[in-house]
């Protein structure tokens, strides 16, 4: 496999081109050529043993740390990744790529179809977490890294980490799986479906061909984001942050303006989201999460795909107030790994910040990730 690499100065990202590779997707569809946009931080050591793949969540991107040129803000996990941060780039070589189907430079619905000047739109094939991970594995291979030290992710990133453990157990030493699950639950699928319906019922969506008139289904996409954002918080966190406080007024308006701060906040979240995210990508990636299901198969996959000498380590983390991916879901993974005597660690962190906790200030999460990486790296490389 010969991979071509370029640098996109506008996106401030490296782009890897996989040409005529005929990537077979889980759906049976084939993508003959694709590209992945990625960022790296830190230096790969001579033995190539210090590489960590960070997997982003649903609306994340490759800008895990440093500047994000699309938003002009700091990377989504810059509090976790960087020099002397818990995932220390003085020590580790961190790779983060925009997922297949994403909209920050990797092949996805908003990119041009191979050999044409029209974007994929709804013609983009359905992708799954397995497909996303397969594409990542090709990137890692093309960077000549035989074995990743760690694959780390929260939420949809946790799904990818788990998929790595299932599909490529010999190519990784450990995974850090934060706020994830073996499957996307009925409730989670339901929330995604409401989001998708909001997008698809926006008249501007036009069966995914909105780009033909240079339009964006802003209303639908922002409503989808508002719904999703509620699921990332907790009742306590919302109450603490907003309560029933009014927005820029002393008395209620008896109308439908954003009287309450929480309304104004959600409207802002929706509005800023449409500036950085593609509506079709949102449809495809929420679907990829919905299709994720290892409930019945995980134990068998782990039992039979691992040779007994494989010391793949798992760190599973959940949060007490996360009702989107509650602790019970993480414990199901832990239980199955324990029943197979795998090397698993599990911690439920006490916080009221909900599902989004993994992106926020949680000192115990920092300590555990830092310690787990540092000590296990020493153990392997002693």
């Amino acid at each position, binding site marked *: 496999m010969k991979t071509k690499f370029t640098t996109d100065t506008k996106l401030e990202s490296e782009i890897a081109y996989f040409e005529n590779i005929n990537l077979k997707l889980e759906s049976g569809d084939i993508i003959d050529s694709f590209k992945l946009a990625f960022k790296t931080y830190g230096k790969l050591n001579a033995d190539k043993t210090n590489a960590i793949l960070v997997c982003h969540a649903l609306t994340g991107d490759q800008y895990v740390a440093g500047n994000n040129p699309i938003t002009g803000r700091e990377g989504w996990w810059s509090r976790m990744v960087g020099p002397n941060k818990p995932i220390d780039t003085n020590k580790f070589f961190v790779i983060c790529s925009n997922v297949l189907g994403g909209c920050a430079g990797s092949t996805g619905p908003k990119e041009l179809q191979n050999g044409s000047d029209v974007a994929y739109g709804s013609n983009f094939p359905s992708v799954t977490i397995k497909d996303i991970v397969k594409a990542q594995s090709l990137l890692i291979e093309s960077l000549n890294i035989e074995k990743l030290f760690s694959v780390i992710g929260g939420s949809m990133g946790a799904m990818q980490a788990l998929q790595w453990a299932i599909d490529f157990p010999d190519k990784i030493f450990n995974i850090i799986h934060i706020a994830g699950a073996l499957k996307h639950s009925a409730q989670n699928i339901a929330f995604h479906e409401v989001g998708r319906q909001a997008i698809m019922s926006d008249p501007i969506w036009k069966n995914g061909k909105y780009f033909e008139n240079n339009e964006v289904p802003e209303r639908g996409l922002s409503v989808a984001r508002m719904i999703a954002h509620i699921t990332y918080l907790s009742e306590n966190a919302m109450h603490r942050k907003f309560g029933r406080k009014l927005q820029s007024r002393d008395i209620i308006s008896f109308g439908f303006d954003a009287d309450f701060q929480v309304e104004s906040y959600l409207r802002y979240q929706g509005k800023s989201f449409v500036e950085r995210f593609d509506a079709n990508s949102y449809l495809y990636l929420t679907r990829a999460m919905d299709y994720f299901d290892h409930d019945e198969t995980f134990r068998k996959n782990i039992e039979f795909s691992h040779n007994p000498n494989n010391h793949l*380590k798992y*760190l599973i983390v959940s949060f007490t107030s996360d009702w989107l991916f509650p602790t019970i879901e993480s*414990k199901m993974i*832990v*239980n199955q790994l*324990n*029943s*197979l*005597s795998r*090397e*698993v*660690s*599990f*911690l*439920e*962190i*006490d916080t009221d910040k909900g599902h989004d906790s993994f992106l926020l200030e949680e000192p*115990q999460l920092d*300590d*555990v990730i*830092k*310690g*787990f990486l*540092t*000590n*296990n790296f*020493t*153990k392997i490389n002693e």
Partner: protein
Amino acid sequence: MNKINSIRKDWSLIETLIAEDRKILDIGCGDGGLMEQLENNRNAITHGIELNRDLAANAIARGFNVVHGNAELDLSQYSNNSFDYVILSQTLQAMMKPKDILSELLRIGSKAIVSFPNFGHWKIRLQLLISGRMPVTESLPYTWYDTPNIHFFTIKDFLNLCNEMNIVIEKSIGLTSKGKQFDISESITGVNFFTHEAIFLLSYKNFEPIKIKSSKKVFAKNSVIAN
């Protein structure tokens, strides 16, 4: 002996009961102190369970395989005989159902190591006898209303339970309150009186296959050999 020294002593005795290169589950592993000791000195592969969130987080951050959880709820997930040793150090008296835990230890592990403070020690008996109030000692330092220790028992009680459950005591070590060490099985008189802390290495009675010969096939059946 203070609490820390007593735990260290406990650990070093537990270490003497463990062979090299074995797979170990430490229940109530704290921040991984015993696991570290057994990895370093016995080349053990260790796993732990810890109820306390902060201790579990510390242990994980130190690189140990530790599951934050409640042993009384979570032990059932482990497979039969998946460990060589399962260790329960100084915690049996704090369990809701000590008998169930004991049988779980020997289901998951080929051997179990259990240590506990002896409620039959003379100081405890004396305190209750003289003051008429629940004893408070170095190894059981809590008042009755806020103690995590909810099931008090003596060495005699423990031996009876093992007998009832067909558990074999392979080794037993007693410690006096001064830290003097002796073999419980060899000291008959006064053991229950002078033992401050006890450490037991347990296994199930040997199951030996009884072969029943028939003209066509040889049947094998597992059966307990009665003493």
